[in-house]
């Protein structure tokens, strides 16, 4: 798995490539929480277009990001979910709690 961050306007985009599972979800969690808690970014957008597989530990990292974003009054958004990633979020009944967009442009332009 590769993970990197970049700036696009007032949004910080986290690009994740590869599977997110118990092996590497701690790294995803660390980056997300660092951006929200330490850098206090106003909008964090997680790009999942390169993620084919995500497990419950990966979902838990995203949920934690969402919860921290609420305490920090930041926006937390996801985009580019693969069918498998969407299925996992739907199975865990969590898809409805996230702001999910199809493309980066939609996420960046979201009011």
């Amino acid at each position, binding site marked *: 798995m590769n993970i990197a961050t970049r700036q696009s306007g007032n949004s910080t985009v986290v690009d994740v490539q590869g*599977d997110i*599972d*118990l*092996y590497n979800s701690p790294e995803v969690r660390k980056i997300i929480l660092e951006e929200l808690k330490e850098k206090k970014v106003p909008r964090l957008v997680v790009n999942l277009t390169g993620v084919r*597989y995500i*497990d*419950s*530990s990966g*979902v*838990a*990292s995203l*949920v*934690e990001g*969402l*919860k921290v974003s609420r305490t920090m009054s930041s926006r937390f958004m996801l985009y580019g979910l693969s069918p*498998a990633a969407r*299925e*996992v979020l*739907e*199975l*865990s*009944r*969590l*898809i*409805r*709690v996230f702001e999910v967009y199809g493309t980066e442009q939609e996420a960046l332009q979201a009011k």
Partner: protein
Amino acid sequence: MDHAIKLTFPSDPRYLGVVRGTVERFAAMAGFDEEDCRWITLAVHEALTNVIRHAYHNRHDQPVELGLGERDGGIEVLMVDHGTGVKQEEMCGRDLEDVKPGGLGLHMIREIMNETDYQPLEGRNELRLFKKKGSKTSVGE
């Protein structure tokens, strides 16, 4: 039952991808469609992460045994560990209305598989999962 495929590997998360690949291909060979193969793979993966986290407390050098076989028009998975057992009454998935990290794995396994039988035995714990062909997994929205 005698499982056609038997794997023994360490409880190291590095091997999760290898196990997923094996399970997905076995399910496809057994005649499950692409979507069901993904579900079965997810259920086995979640069971394995539970073993690593809860039975072996994140120790990465403990043995896990996995058996894959076909019976009664479906797939049976047997996972054996030698770690800390969990009492049946303690195996409760979390309330899905409560949005918080963690506690999702068991819920996913139960939603996906038709049968989930966990037995904490003397010196070993056995988890037996069964999924019948044609039994679709419903994602609740």
